[in-house]
């Protein structure tokens, strides 16, 4: 069946098998492999993308459910060659090791910072409930999110 939607600002239309999961559509048809699959059961968060501005686990959404939607993936986060403050934060604070969880973590964190500009450590830990990282022990991820939040607050203020 026909699917039309906007990914990272670009409109596209594709013929798809109706049972295709959004994550597989993004990776295999749209060619955006930055979104990862870690469990296919909505438990790890590696597949997190934004659907109409909100974080969703794209392994538990059918592609057809995204008809007409705006999707943002990790590939669409940097604007005009400028990294998103969260991407900078993860880089500067060593918020990643193997990098597999990272796109999902960053997308989940972006969703959090859209709701809460100045989250506490506890709030961040709770907000990451659905995102697993096996490498970092989370501390540098939390530092990364806090550093990005601070940067985003000053950017807004400026």
């Amino acid at each position, binding site marked *: 069946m026909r699917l039309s939607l906007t990914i990272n600002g670009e409109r596209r239309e594709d013929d798809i*098998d109706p*049972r*295709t999961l959004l994550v597989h559509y993004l*990776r295999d048809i749209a*060619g*955006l*492999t*930055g*979104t*990862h*699959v*870690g*469990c*296919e*059961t909505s*438990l*790890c968060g*590696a597949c997190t993308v934004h659907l109409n501005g909100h974080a969703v686990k794209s392994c538990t959404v059918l592609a057809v459910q995204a008809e007409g939607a705006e999707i943002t*993936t*990790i*590939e669409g*986060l*940097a604007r005009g060659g400028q*990294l998103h403050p969260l*991407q900078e934060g*993860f*880089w*500067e604070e*060593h918020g*990643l*090791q*193997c*990098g*597999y*969880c*990272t*796109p999902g973590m*960053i997308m989940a964190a972006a969703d959090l910072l859209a709701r809460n500009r100045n989250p506490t*450590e*506890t709030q*961040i*830990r*709770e907000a*990451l*409930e659905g*995102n*697993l*990282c*096996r*490498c*970092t*022990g*989370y*501390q*540098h*991820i*939390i530092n990364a999110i806090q550093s990005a939040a601070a940067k985003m607050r000053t950017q807004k203020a400026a």
Partner: protein
Amino acid sequence: MAVIPKFVGERIKRREDPRLITGTGMYVDDVRLPGMLSAVVLRSPHAHAKINSIDLSKARALKGVVCVLSGDDLRDKVGPVPCVAPADHVPYHPVLAQGKVRFVGEGVAVAVASSPYIAQDALDLIDVDYDPLDAVVDPEKALEPGAPVLHEEFGNNSVTFASVPNPAVDEAMRKADKIIKARLVNQRLAPIPMEPRGAVARWDGGYKQLTVWSSTQIPHLLRSQLAEMLKVGENRIRVIAPEVGGGFGCKLNVYAEEALVAHLSMTLGKPVKWIERRRENFAGTTHGRDQITYLEVAALKDGTVTAVKAHFVCDMGAYLQLLTPAIPGFSGLMMTGCYKIPALSFDQQMVFTNKMSTDAYRGAGRPEACYIAERVMDMVAAEFGLDPADVRRKNFIPKEAFPAPTAGGLVYDSGDYELSLNKALEIVGYQKVRAEQEAARKQGRYIGIGIASYVEICGIGPSALLPPKLKGGGWESATIRMEPDCKVTVLTGVSPHGQGQETTFAQIVADELGIDIDDVNVVHGDTAVVQYGIGTFGSRGTTVGGPALMMSVGKLQEKMKKIASTMMEVPPDQLIFTNRTVALASDPSKSIPLQQVVDAAYGYKQPIPGVEPGLDATSFYEPQNCTFPFGTHVAVVEVDPETGVVKFLRYVAVDDCGRILSPLLVEGQVHGGIAQGIAQALYEEVVYDESGQLLTATLMDYAVPKAHMLPRYELSATVTPSPVNVLGVKGVGEAGTIGSTPCVVSAVMDALKPFGIRHIDMPLKPEKVWRAIRDAQQKG
């Protein structure tokens, strides 16, 4: 010209990150090739069953299906899954089951189709007629007469019995004030890298070239084993470890699926991809730990431990993977920990059960050893009413004793155990916290302080310490190439997958050659590009790969100095590399640009006597000993007696990994290690029921810790360089995992002391803790 700074020792942002934070790294599932097919594996739902027949006809008839095979179709076509470690009984391990299945998740058939969805549909159409057999999952029961036998040819379930006797132990037991006995369990764990396994193979018939992309820690060793399994020359196989999303030991292996996709691609003439799903990962990727230890400890009233005797029962699972029976040995050898315990004896009974194989998991044998050593110290302290810190001090190998031979027959390279203990206690404010604990107890609050001093073994070498059948040894390789434009390429034989050697090695090279870190490109994980290497495991990346790189850097420097010396007319030994020049050490203003030296080497218009054209060097570094990182972790926890929930109040870690090259990356390694060690102490456990069904097959049932389940870590370090290698490094990949497990258990037991509870087996889940408290209250 701007001065180029030094990089080693600085908090450098990682060079691998830009691609990873923008989603442009390439993991194995991101490999896309024209005409690529998908393979999906049908897995056994039974822990133990005879296969009467398999009907593949309906699956083969499905539209879009290219091929469906069972184990019988592969007889004599693909060799068995290898185990290189010695054992009395090494069973034949087919890539797909033949005649019998022996654990839930064992591969039975494979379907190849134009998409994974169709291949999955095909699996549903395969009809397997099984005769279920009794299963055995408890390794101790597996040894009892009459237990179901997994591999009939051996007559029983023993893999190997190994014994390291020592008459001095009995002597010490006779003289002891007290013999403390205990049974300790290191439960079965699942490594769970966030990226499951996966492999893609492409056979190029014209060129007779097989390329295999695999999520592996050991591309070269995998190539050697695939060559044997497929009967293809190693010079015809290229293994690529692309971006690897975590390994933790479970990708230090050779798996059936890697050979399967290769075989399928060779027979079908098309690229074939297999990607493991999480459920398969739980069932069919190696597990770790799973050891039971019966301990006898000879102790004196003053807290001195004079002997340790142990009997291990080690669960190997149904088959032996690459190093399965080699792992428990480390637990035995390292069991005396940081302590000068004079007498050690142990034996190890390794056992087959109807479960997935165990093998290396972060720490691989040493977390078990450290857990034992630290529980011993705590038990001795409890027995004689001594302070656990004092008991450790009393037994520590003193810093003057290094290099220190141990009762296990190892020689610890360097150490200052008391220094790290004192530092950790000082950071945590030990006396103050003890006072707070006292005060809290009076209010009915249960605070516990846990201490673990660990020593572990990294960068295992010399090569003779590794299994004789392992292709390759304990060495590592590195090539350095100064390119004609004065940029440097490093080819390392290690295969990092998160550890960050693209950064660390670039730091080293930049400093040694006086160039910018941006001028260095570190390449790894491609056997067609990189000289034979061993890979990344056992905290060996920088510990063994680093010195190999230093050897090559040295050779390159020597050559460039020779060239520069003819150009500058000064002796080569008076030259140094700084700021992209070769300069006179005594007066760096007398210099020539590095580029001129490089031009001379490549242009070679003026032959330089005794110097070949070009600028590269390859080295293979054979370590003369292992390295022994150490440290002390201290945890402060509070246990809620009403719920059994353990809450962290503090977590302090003082680690000594020798010289620190990349402080930020070292912190990252320690953090991740602590998280996994805490997970063993409190949360994780692979559970099979009595019939061998895997009860923890999803991330819902297996508690990989989430962010809110872990504390903030307070890190510090002492620096005791290793004399084993030129860099003075010891390795840090596993240290955190090793120190944290006993530390947290120690803290919880300390909290429960008022209840008279001395030991609970891990994981210390709320329910278990709550039960132990309730039982103690009812008794008392």
